[in-house]
């Protein structure tokens, strides 16, 4: 994608004004989002839409549907199948054997964006003959990306990267076993899709909705400040069954959170934790 010339810059104070306006006119509260990243995303929207800050406030308040569009564009929706293959290796070797001891499994992919990670987990569980007794919830604040997730169709141009990732994680099988290619897209096969529900959930404001044995939330907390991170980690703690697993992104740091005393560190580098009390 060609980079657009940067024409609009806003200050952190102006960013705060936008956050307040959005909060007043909708259910969306971005006040716990990481400032610099959010500022960059808002500036991107201003440049795309050729707006200044007054136009933006005006559109948020007065233009039907703009709030929704704004939230969709301001959240980052980059994901991939089998992103960080080392993480999937670790899941297969260390976590799966433990999960096999549960009679029924529920997994939650929080902030799942367009669904690639949800399908990756489904494939991993299927390979390990666990999928039949598993149900996976994929949630995101952005309902537009969830539509793409539900469709389960991805451009072939991306499948090359996903296949590389998959082969790094597990070269015995072929990723193509799990999708059907046609024209310039690949659709995830029905047997992979069957035990999955995609639904909206806002980590910043919503609450516990089920109990899980496995929670994945990778590269979502990086968009939250430490206060909001603490809320979300507590939400995960309350959502986990005893001895359930929490998997975060490899560059995320939550080691300063007091609730972590209730977790055992399974892998410090890959950020995998198990609830032990």
């Amino acid at each position, binding site marked *: *994608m060609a*980079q657009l010339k*940067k024409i609009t*810059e806003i200050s*952190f104070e102006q960013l705060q004004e936008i956050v307040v306006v959005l909060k007043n006119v909708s259910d969306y509260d971005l006040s716990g989002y*990481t*400032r*610099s*990243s959010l*500022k*960059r*995303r808002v500036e991107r929207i201003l440049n795309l839409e050729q707006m200044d800050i007054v136009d933006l406030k005006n559109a948020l308040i007065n233009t039907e549907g703009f709030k929704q569009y704004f939230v969709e564009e301001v959240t*980052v929706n*980059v994901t991939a199948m089998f992103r960080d293959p*080392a993480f999937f290796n670790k899941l297969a070797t260390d976590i799966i054997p433990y999960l096999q001891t549960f009679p029924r499994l529920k997994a939650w992919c929080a902030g799942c964006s367009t669904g690639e990670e949800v399908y990756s987990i489904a494939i991993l569980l299927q390979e390990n003959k666990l999928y039949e007794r598993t149900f996976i919830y994929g949630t995101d604040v952005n309902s537009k990306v969830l539509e793409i997730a539900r469709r389960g169709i991805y451009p072939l141009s991306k499948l090359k990267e996903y296949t*590389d990732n998959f082969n*790094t994680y597990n070269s015995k099988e072929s990723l193509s076993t799990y999708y059907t290619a046609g024209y310039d897209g690949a659709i995830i096969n029905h047997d992979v899709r069957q035990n999955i529900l995609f639904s909206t959930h806002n980590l910043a404001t919503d609450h516990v909705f089920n109990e899980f044995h496995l929670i994945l939330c990778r*590269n979502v*907390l*990086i*968009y939250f400040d*430490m206060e909001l*991170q603490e809320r979300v980690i507590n939400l995960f703690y309350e959502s986990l069954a005893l001895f359930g697993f929490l998997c975060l*992104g490899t*560059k*995320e*740091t939550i080691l300063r959170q007091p609730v972590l005393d209730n977790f055992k560190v399974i892998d410090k580098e890959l950020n995998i934790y198990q609830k032990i009390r």
Partner: protein
Amino acid sequence: MKPTAPLLVAIGGSAGAYELVVAILENLPTYFDAAIVIVLHRNSKYETRIESSLSDRFGREIRAIRDKMPILTNEIYFAPPGYHTLVEPDFIFSLDVSDPVQYSRPSIDVFFESVADVYQDRCVALLLSGANKDGANGFRALIRHGASCYVQQPGEALISTMPQAGLDVHSKVVPWNHQEIINFFRNNLKTETHEND
């Protein structure tokens, strides 16, 4: 805890920059009153061990940035591959996996632009060898906020595209030869009052 850095030295580079980065680190004084942050383009597919091998070599910890890590003085940081690195108004790092900029993640532009917002004139930025123009837009933001911008003299760079693009941004951007770069890091970051950790 160590104090936050009063000055941020931001180094960006790509192909052909690594050797000079090592030479810079080699010539640093034991104590310097700044945070040095290095953003190099590198492939996230291959988990490189730049930080640990340089830590061993120089006998001091060189950190791979993790999300929400504080930016402290007398510390050296590397941006992790596969993420954009940004700085926050409360002087901590944050990471972001939004789309690559100039085909790069980490992008030097993204990093420099956020440093400009937060550190303003308390920043020295240096752009080294590289085959694309990442960093030039970042220089624009830095210059606007009063930061000092330098490039490796394009004639001395293995690949001159990146430093040349940086130099073309503004007349305030100064080219440095190898010795001037080394001298800056050897002599200009020392402080009068020597502190111990």
